[in-house]
């Protein structure tokens, strides 16, 4: 048993030092296939996709939460969005974008990530807006506020922490899933994983995974900070 432990420890050290070497190699940091370029591609496609998700989901959720109309849509769209695998969307969109001469992997990935980003933003915004105390809204109405004012001055600020949490979940999931872009011949950090797998270079696979996880964690932490700022402003 002691022997097994030593082997596992030795193995772990071996991988760690190979990964360390990989990160120290200047060749992995330069040019269009280096870490900074791949990182930029990854961030670019993730933010673009979540931006489009927000442009669709945010107004829809605000409207549904404010008017309390068509509420069933939120649950059904969120469920459907979770049920459709991103991998399948990539596969479906690829032949279509090729036929439309829009290039290979970029748009299929954006569409898959856009759909992935919708459920968290939609559900959280809706739950936040819809959960604002009815008495508070009635008091605001009694003071002569219009529907738009209630939404802007009351519902959105009160729902802000939940809305930010929705963006956070969406972005973290999208960053982790943007790895799939490499499967359809686009860039991003997934390239290190796919190319590393193709040539059996474990250090490169691990480096790619570490970079994606680090990016997702960075997004999570900075959003946590934003969320706290919103909460502080409210409690004053």
């Amino acid at each position: 048993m002691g022997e097994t432990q030593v082997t596992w420890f030795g193995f772990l050290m071996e991988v760690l030092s190979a990964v360390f070497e990989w990160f120290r190699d200047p060749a992995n940091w330069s040019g269009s296939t280096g870490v900074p370029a791949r990182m930029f591609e990854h961030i670019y496609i993730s933010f673009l996709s979540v931006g489009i998700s927000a442009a669709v989901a945010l107004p829809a959720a605000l409207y549904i939460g404010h008017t309390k109309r068509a509420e069933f849509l939120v649950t059904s769209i969120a469920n459907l969005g979770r049920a459709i695998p991103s991998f399948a969307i990539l596969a479906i969109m690829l032949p279509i974008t090729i036929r439309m001469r829009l290039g290979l992997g970029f748009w299929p990935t954006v569409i898959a990530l856009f759909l992935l980003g919708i459920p968290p933003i939609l559900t959280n915004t809706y739950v936040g807006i819809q959960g604002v105390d009815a008495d508070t809204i009635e008091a605001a109405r009694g003071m002569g506020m219009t529907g738009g004012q209630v939404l802007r001055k009351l519902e959105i600020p009160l729902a802000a922490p939940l809305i930010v949490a929705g963006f956070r979940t969406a972005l973290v999931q999208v960053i982790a899933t943007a790895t799939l872009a490499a499967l359809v011949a686009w860039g991003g950090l997934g390239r290190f994983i796919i190319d590393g797998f193709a040539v059996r270079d474990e250090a490169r696979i691990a480096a790619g995974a570490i970079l994606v996880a680090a990016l997702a964690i960075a997004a999570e932490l900075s959003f946590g900070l934003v969320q706290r700022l919103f909460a502080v402003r409210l409690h004053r």
Partner: protein
Amino acid sequence: MILAQGEPLLEWDWIVRHSSQIFERFLQHAELTAIAVGIGLLISFPVAVFAYRHRWLIGPVTWFTGLLYTIPSLALFAFLVPYTGLSTTTAEIGLVSYTLLILIRNIVAGLDGVPADTREAAIGMGYTKRQLLWKVELPLALPVMVAGIRIASVTTIGLVTVTALIGQGGLGYFILLGLRRFFSTPIIAGTILSVAFAMTVDAALLIGQRALTPWVRRKSPGLAS
């Protein structure tokens, strides 16, 4: 051109010819999902109950399972293959680790939602800690817990398709097949069946939960975050 303009998106005779293979892959899909959510629950349940009783643990547990959640599935599978091979084990290690965050968070949230008065009343009536958990806290936490199981199941069913890349995949096999051959019929068939399976499991769990907790009138929305 790779895809001929006149080619229909869905060729029915392909589906008819491959119906037994499709059924086999569906069974594999169901099995991979059931094992992943089952093992996920076996791990999450004791961890969540323990963290609920020792509250300082909730932070580290959420942090760790959240860390697992950020590891891209593709990288995890690629990294495990040299050691566990193109096997069910490789797939399940990934699938199980992605269920943990959702399940633990919802079990803790469900237990947290039990009204303090109810808990006190039960303790006042002489319930032991174990009776309190099994007879009061768990039944009341069930709707939120099932909401977590539903999200975990639906997410897992989607993720199973990715395991096609490591020779598993269930219905994802057809998606990869179509992607490699630029043939849309298997992609669409695999996707539609996978989505239908996810929605059926989701609905079945909801119906089961409502039957088990008839005192809950309003449905609890399943929250992802």
